């Protein structure tokens, strides 16, 4: 098992009481792996303790990205939520802590490949 952050990078933000987390493959191979394994159901189960609703995944292959929309995850969001993170700032980092059964080295850029 390796942490998701070894093969992916991410960014999260808020929209009312929902949030989105965009997840990007660190390599083309990593993105292919993510598309197969990081399903909406997997992400929904992971964030269930925060009360998330039905997660929707949008595939953005031209950016080697998956965009997850997490409805209702911010317990009111904005000025309303009492949580330390009312705006979903930590959700990207939290998702990257997920343990995944991906091949070791999947996120490593080979020397010939430009960083991207």
């Amino acid at each position, binding site marked *: 098992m390796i942490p998701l952050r070894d093969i992916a990078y991410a960014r999260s933000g808020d929209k009312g009481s929902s949030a*989105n987390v965009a997840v990007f493959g660190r390599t083309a191979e990593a993105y292919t792996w993510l598309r197969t394994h990081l399903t909406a159901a997997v992400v929904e189960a992971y964030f269930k303790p925060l009360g998330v609703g039905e997660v929707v995944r*949008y595939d*953005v292959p*031209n950016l080697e*990205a998956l965009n997850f929309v997490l409805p209702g995850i911010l317990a009111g*969001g904005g000025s309303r939520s009492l*949580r330390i*993170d009312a705006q979903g700032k930590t959700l*990207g980092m939290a998702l990257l802590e997920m343990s995944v059964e991906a091949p070791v080295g999947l996120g490593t850029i080979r020397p010939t490949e430009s*960083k991207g």
Partner: protein
Amino acid sequence: MPAPLKIANAAGFWGDQPGVAAKLVAQQPDLDFITFDYLAEVSLSIMAILRAKDPAAGYARDFIEVVRSLEEFWKQGGRTRLVSNAGGLDPVACAEAVRVELARANLAHLKIAVLSGDDVHAMVTSDGAEFQNLETGAGLEEVRDRLVTANAYLGAEDIAAALRAGADIVITGRVADPSLTVGPCLAHFGWAATDYDRLAGATVAGHLIECGTQVCGGISTDWLELPDSHAIGFPLVEVSADGSCVVTKPAGTGGAVTLRTVKEQLLYEIGDPGDYLSPDVSVSFLALKVDAIAENRVRVSGATGRAPPPTYKVSATYRDGYKAHGMLTVFGHDAVKKARHAGEGLIRRLHDDGCVFREHLIECLGTGASVRGVASRVSDTHLIETVLRVSVAADTKEPVERFTREIAPLVTCGPQGVTGYASGRPKVMPIFGYWPCLIDRSLVQPIVRLVN
């Protein structure tokens, strides 16, 4: 082909780093425009509270300081123009304050335009109006009498009209964030309002810079590896006549503009990437191309657009009670257990004294509390220290007020090892509910006016 239009951003939110605009024009004097985005979802409700105490406080006064900081640059022939939603609830008063400031500095030849008409509070609160909540589907009836603000997101066409009239400084109320960038492009390139692919490209450019340093490495996953992260540059886009752009930052600034920082920011706060809505155009990101063309220069092209919706989005806020958060540090063995026990005891004591809270929350920071129950690999029992954070919310102010006076006493009645109480009592804060809804465009009358 006309030269690309250089548009920077010097504020990603109300309260962003001061002094940025003056630094930007020193680093990059050939900027055509600087944009400033001051308005997050609930910023206008904060202005409403400030304005209740001081009628002149309905806009972002920081912007007057920005204008002052650029006076020397303009006197020496600098031509950079400004577009900002600093007007907040009261764009006319903001424009008047800028006029007075420029007159004082003998810069009265700079033309100021104000865009108003976004305030639809009267319409939204009138009897019989629908205005369903876009998130919950609920009817407005339940909050109508508590509505504080209701503002439509106006678009680029009105900003472009102000610029065509010769404005050097455009001050708006609520507009869609990317429209601050799209407006100058529309006016400069003479695009038609139906040039949807070009508008889509400019909207993407505006979206990329609207959060200040974020596209230059701020909050990026690999932030720790950034060069000179203490001085990350603010971004600029060089928008071409076809709507594509190059994202970059002034030479000599910290941070980085890479494929990764740009891709992260492209999907920041995005729902369906195939249907990003603005009042100017509905944008698809699904054919976007990002290319690193040189160090700290990333070209973004391939945006496609369709006609925008026939409605404006409205961001409304309503009063929804009060809240407060109190924090104390707890050190020692069983720190988390003690912190939690102290927090629960505090709530119980208040309850026994008759305080009614509709909600409370006890968090022990350091245990993964930001995402409680998710990714918690920290064993609470091994922590030698935690920050206890207790929060309450109530319909009325009194119980919350009382709560704020009960935090410090934990220093004497709580566990041994409580510290960090020196910052004083927490503040009682009003809670604003967020009410996104739609309004027919025909009901909204944007007004563009030159002030001087």
